[in-house]
């Protein structure tokens, strides 16, 4: 099997720009640095700055609360997040059901990561969280487990969007096991130093910075280890548009949105679009997960 270097996957120009940026930031690649956002647009120098709390918490895609970007903020105010438990089940030696308090006791750290939505916009979010692997290590995963499936709570009483067949509820997302075990795959417990607002996926969500935003399931109640590839919500709704992997890839266009560029949330009306980076800029950390894979086919 031919191994691809990251420099072969991304265009050289972007790669070099990115390298020089990283160098200029003065940290080594081996040390995984969470408090950095790999952005390259030379013109804009304020892009490392997190998006405002207001934008992060009022501009959301969370279809359980409606399809409008402002719906989650308006409608999730009284969403019940206590009591809450998260089940870890499936291909494990012994399933467990963890109360949310126990999960929140795991030490969270600030992780400033970039969110790239499949619709062609991005935000920089100072999440609080820890690696999913820490949570998965609480169970004994069987050797035949290949995938991890995340299930969002089903609560149509409070999640008015679930009363309509917009998607197959409950929302299902998933990762390959090695993706799930990657240190950048984050269990999010808060943002901006505060507990996670309901509209951002309280009390617990997942965040995978190198994939389009919809891969990062919110308000999770079940984590299931599986043998087969999970039937994820958007892939289920439109397989041609949304693949299982859905890695940020400027070279694979979505039939609706160009993925070559993106709009930075919170920028002025006159700000230009910026170039989208392969793996949302996290290629040095994650490209090896896909060596030998045709990412145009496995979109």
């Amino acid at each position: 099997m031919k191994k691809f270097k990251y420099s072969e996957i991304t265009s050289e120009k972007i790669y070099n720009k990115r390298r020089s940026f990283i160098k200029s930031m003065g940290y080594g690649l081996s040390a995984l640095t969470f408090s950095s956002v790999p952005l390259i647009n030379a013109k804009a120098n304020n892009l490392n700055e997190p998006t405002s709390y207001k934008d992060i918490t009022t501009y959301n895609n969370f279809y359980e609360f409606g399809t409008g970007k402002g719906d989650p903020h308006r409608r999730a105010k009284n969403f019940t997040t206590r009591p809450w438990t998260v089940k870890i089940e499936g291909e494990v030696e012994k399933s467990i059901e963890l109360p949310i308090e126990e999960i929140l006791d795991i030490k969270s750290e600030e992780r400033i990561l970039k969110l790239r939505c499949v619709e062609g916009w991005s935000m920089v979010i100072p999440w609080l969280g820890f690696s999913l692997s820490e949570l998965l290590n609480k169970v004994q995963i069987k050797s035949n487990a290949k995938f991890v499936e995340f299930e969002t709570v089903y609560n149509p009483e409070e999640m008015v969007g679930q009363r309509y067949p917009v998607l197959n509820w409950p929302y299902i997302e998933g990762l390959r096991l090695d993706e799930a075990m990657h240190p950048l795959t984050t269990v999010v417990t808060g943002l901006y130093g505060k507990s996670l607002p309901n509209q951002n996926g309280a009390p617990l969500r997942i965040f995978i910075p190198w994939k389009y935003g919809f891969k990062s399931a919110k308000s999770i109640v079940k984590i299931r280890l599986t043998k087969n590839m999970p039937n994820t919500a958007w892939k289920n709704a439109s397989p041609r548009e949304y693949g299982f992997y859905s890695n940020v890839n400027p070279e694979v266009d979505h039939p609706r949105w160009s993925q070559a560029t993106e709009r930075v949330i919170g920028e002025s009306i006159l700000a230009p679009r910026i170039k989208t980076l392969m793996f949302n800029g996290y290629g040095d950390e994650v490209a090896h997960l896909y060596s030998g894979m045709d990412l145009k086919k496995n979109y």
Partner: protein
Amino acid sequence: MKNYFKPAVFLLSLWPIYIITYQLIYNKLGPEPVDRIINHFGEWTLIFVLLTLSMTPLKKITNSLEWIKFRRMLGLFAFFYASVHMLSYVGLDYRFDFEPLIDDVLKKKFIFIGFSAWLLLIPLAITSSDKMVRILKKNWKKLHRLVYVISIFGVLHFIWLSKTIFFKPLIFLIILIILLLFRINLKKFNLS
């Protein structure tokens, strides 16, 4: 018809402009202002296309010819907002960078069909004057039947660009179907 009706409808039809001006001045366009502006004018284009299509059914229902007098103005507003919609996409979003734009038009069916709808609106806008009605005679009516194609293209454009049909695209689709069904019934009615 009272002679202040037309100016009143004209001023009311500028509503989308008042809104966007207000939001621009008071910084209320939200986190994605460019997107907001494009969508705003896109939706209003569709509303005006549907309003234009409502005049003939209203004429039949109310048995009053008054409605038809607003049809041209509403149609021209539809063209105006369609042009602003397209220009904000071309200018604000893509800054007249035509390479990715052409790519978009050719590769993305929702942009292709939206752009086609705008192109088809041009001959209708040009031939909207009384003089052109006289010059084109019977052909005028034939030409202006293009509005049915345009309305279908417009609603398809909205459906295809939305991640799901719920709910706005669906509402536009239902209203369009009702308005088009009116035409079929009217024709049958005329034949009998």
